[in-house]
């Protein structure tokens, strides 16, 4: 196909733009919901479908869209990797830049046995998924890109824009007639309205997320599309599906001069030296080889699956290594589950009852911990749509198995009473799509006053900001006017606040607005959470 790589580049660009557009549109906009297809790239990702099916024995209907990807892969090979995957696009873009920087020192790369690594990794992960571990999806390329952009790149950019424009704004007054803020302020306003999520949205532990992301992109300097060739579990899954696709590369031996230009331009390192030994499972169908060949000896042609011509070389996975991966995956899961913070099926909670992590407040509609962890891909879509920025990636609160899964950190943002967006967008329904009226009754936890430093309790002054903001119509925080005696012996009436355990839904706005920053006088823990009967220690009175 003439101009193949050009067309592929255009499709890749469109795909990446669509991905970023969906991501940007999933922010809080006045009077508008995020697009109903915010999770599109997750739906068409077969790894998420397979992992959710294996781990949670569940198939959310929209994830069945991934069957289209499977079909395309069976017919035409890893087109998804080469043409659609936005993370792959980013890698090929970075690789292109690297080529421009170090074009002279460019080594010709050919198929390397290390490319088998991704299959072994996938085997281990799938063995883990069979036993209920969903961890593979946190290394899914779509998830990786979405999470990194949402929690690290955009907030970083926002911080830079906010801080620098504020610095220019404050500097303005000293400059006299020169007014740089006349330019920067409209830019800032535009970005705030059209790109950024909420005021100063930032995420705990985004440093690690950024390091992983930048590290993976930087690996392109070492080997082009390193991630896609050596590590990507989705790529491995698609590779297994494209062992004998209908669309195959055909080499006309008669005209081939073994100049090796095809391999030099190959994105996937699909062939050995001089273009021989082509492996369909490693080919991204990027069409670079076809366009690079000066004698037109290469072409992609349709063929029947039972035909072994042209020769399709297998990647040669070793049974022994495969078994080791499977055992490794199982052991890793056992290791995760032995942690005191891991989820427990029996208790529906953490850690065989040994350690309760009170700060693990899951979003409204989240399933019981074990079921939740078996579905959550840690993609960060819920964190992206959260209007208060309160949903944050876990670091170790849910054990290593729950790495980067969402939890509410009330001091950073409360759960908005009239909002159920996180459940609406969750691609795997780890957070159930609750109706608003049901969501308002869903308890995330319970607030508790710390009377040792809550202002009215400890210092005898009225405060009641928590009561003022409590969104429960009957007010889950109430006060009792209490006579107290001050240091000087003077009697005074103070309004002492209390929590009504029957009404509190644990939204955390009380903790968020408490004047005592850092160590609030009222805190929310996940006690009484609706999703977990084993963690409801307080009997209702009515």
């Amino acid at each position: 196909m003439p101009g193949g790589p050009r067309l592929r580049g255009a499709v890749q660009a469109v795909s990446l733009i669509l991905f970023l557009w969906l991501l940007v549109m999933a922010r809080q906009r006045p009077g508008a919901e995020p697009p109903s297809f915010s999770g599109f790239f997750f739906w068409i990702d077969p790894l998420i479908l397979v992992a959710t099916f294996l781990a949670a024995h569940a198939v959310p209907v929209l994830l069945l869209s991934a069957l289209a990807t499977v079909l395309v892969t069976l017919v035409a090979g890893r087109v998804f990797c080469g043409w659609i995957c936005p993370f792959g696009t980013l890698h090929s873009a970075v690789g292109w830049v690297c080529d421009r920087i170090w074009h002279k020192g460019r080594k010709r790369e050919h198929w390397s046995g290390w490319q088998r690594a991704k299959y072994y990794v996938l085997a281990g992960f799938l063995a883990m998924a069979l036993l209920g571990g969903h961890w593979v999806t946190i290394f899914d390329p779509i998830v990786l890109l979405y999470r990194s952009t949402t929690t690290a790149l955009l907030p970083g950019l926002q911080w830079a824009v906010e801080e620098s424009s504020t610095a220019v704004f404050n500097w303005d007054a000293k400059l006299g007639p020169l007014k740089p803020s006349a330019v920067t302020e409209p830019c800032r306003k535009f970005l705030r309205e059209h790109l950024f999520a909420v005021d100063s949205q930032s995420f705990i532990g985004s440093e690690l997320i950024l390091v992983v992301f930048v590290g993976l992109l930087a690996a392109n300097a070492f080997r082009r599309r390193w991630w896609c060739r050596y590590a990507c579990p989705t790529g491995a899954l698609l590779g297994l599906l494209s062992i004998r696709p209908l669309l195959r590369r055909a080499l006309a031996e008669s005209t081939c001069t073994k100049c090796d230009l095809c391999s030099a331009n190959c994105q996937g390192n699909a062939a050995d030296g001089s273009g021989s030994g082509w492996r369909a499972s490693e080919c991204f169908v990027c069409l670079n080889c076809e366009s690079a060949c000066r004698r037109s000896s290469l072409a992609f042609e349709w063929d029947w699956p039972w035909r072994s011509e042209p020769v399709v070389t297998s990647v040669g996975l070793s049974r022994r290594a495969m078994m080791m991966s499977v055992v490794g995956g199982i052991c890793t899961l056992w290791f995760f589950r032995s942690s005191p913070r891991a989820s427990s099926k029996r208790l529906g909670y953490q850690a065989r009852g040994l350690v309760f992590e009170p700060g693990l407040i899951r979003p409204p509609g989240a399933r019981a911990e074990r079921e939740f962890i078996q579905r959550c891909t840690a993609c960060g879509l819920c964190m992206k749509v959260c209007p208060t920025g309160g949903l944050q990636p876990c670091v170790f609160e849910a054990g290593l198995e729950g790495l980067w899964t969402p939890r509410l950190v009330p001091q950073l943002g409360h759960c908005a009473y009239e909002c159920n967006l996180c459940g609406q967008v969750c691609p795997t329904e780890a957070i159930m799509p609750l109706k608003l009226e049901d969501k308002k009754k869903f308890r995330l936890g319970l607030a508790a006053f710390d009377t040792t430093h809550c202002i009215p309790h400890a210092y005898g002054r009225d405060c009641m900001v928590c009561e003022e903001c409590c969104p429960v119509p009957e007010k889950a925080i109430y006060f009792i006017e209490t006579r107290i005696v001050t240091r000087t012996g003077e009697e005074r009436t103070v309004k002492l606040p209390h929590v009504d355990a029957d009404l509190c839904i644990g939204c955390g706005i009380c903790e968020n607005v408490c004047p005592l920053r850092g160590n609030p006088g009222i805190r929310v823990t996940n006690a009484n959470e609706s999703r977990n009967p084993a963690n409801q220690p307080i009997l209702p009175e009515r």
Partner: protein
Amino acid sequence: MQKHSRREFLAHSAVAAGAFAFGVQPGSQSQAAEASGPSDMAIARWQGTGTPDDKQFKELSVKLTERAIEALGGIKRFVSRGAVVWIKPNIAFERKPELAATTNPDVVATLVRLCFDAGAKTVRVGDNPVHDARRTYPTSGIPEAVEKLGAEVVYLDRARTREMKVDGERLKMHPVFPEMVECDLMINVPIVKHHGLARATMCMKNYMGVVENRRVFHQDIATCVADITRFMKPRICVLDATRVLLRNGPTGGRIEDVDVQMQVAAGIDPVALDAWGAERLGVKPNEIGTITKGQEFGLGKMDYRTLSLREVVVV
């Protein structure tokens, strides 16, 4: 604060004496004096009883606002040609207007229209809400109502507050939203609501939406609110009592706690308006700290009946 000319004083005295002589309530008497120059406070109420239906409610809200402003001496008394006006409703919480936690959008929209009719160049509408403005604004119905009239709905930028000299009893320097202070006129349009700590939130407390770092105010809410009110130098307030939140304020959320009273008051004295509003909630004005503190600060008179007051009835 209240300056009365001798003539005004005599006229009021005569009216009061006449009213006393004929055994008529001062309020209804002053209604007869309608459209004879400006007054200090005007109350418009609906003649009907019960709850009007949705359509009637909308029409009445508009009419009540128009008549209250008219009885106050017309909006031209405050809005000059080419003026930049900021209308400050209460949009603090994400609640639908029926739940009476935010100002009635029709009252706000009517004020916008009156301002433009009086020749205002720009009318801006905005608040510094407790919840995210991107959620409270659309839910309140206010942007929808005012944007079609040409008003600008402003989402305030919290990183653009300025430390200003409040010079109050409690607050000396405080971060203030400059765009709200630097306009030609601010029309304060709160709603009458119950408030757990302050007992009621009305005109004076609505000025808390002009500043940031409000959390500490609650430890001495009366003084802080009075400080901010004095700093803002109120010129006109319109108090929305079309719906009143009787309990579980200031957030509300239950329709049972809402009382449809169909009244709108306008005035130049926030303390007087708050005293009137307190009565809408069934609270004595002198039991509310912000009101007594306001009077102590000389911001107005708690006993609103002693002002030049006009009451109009809308059918």
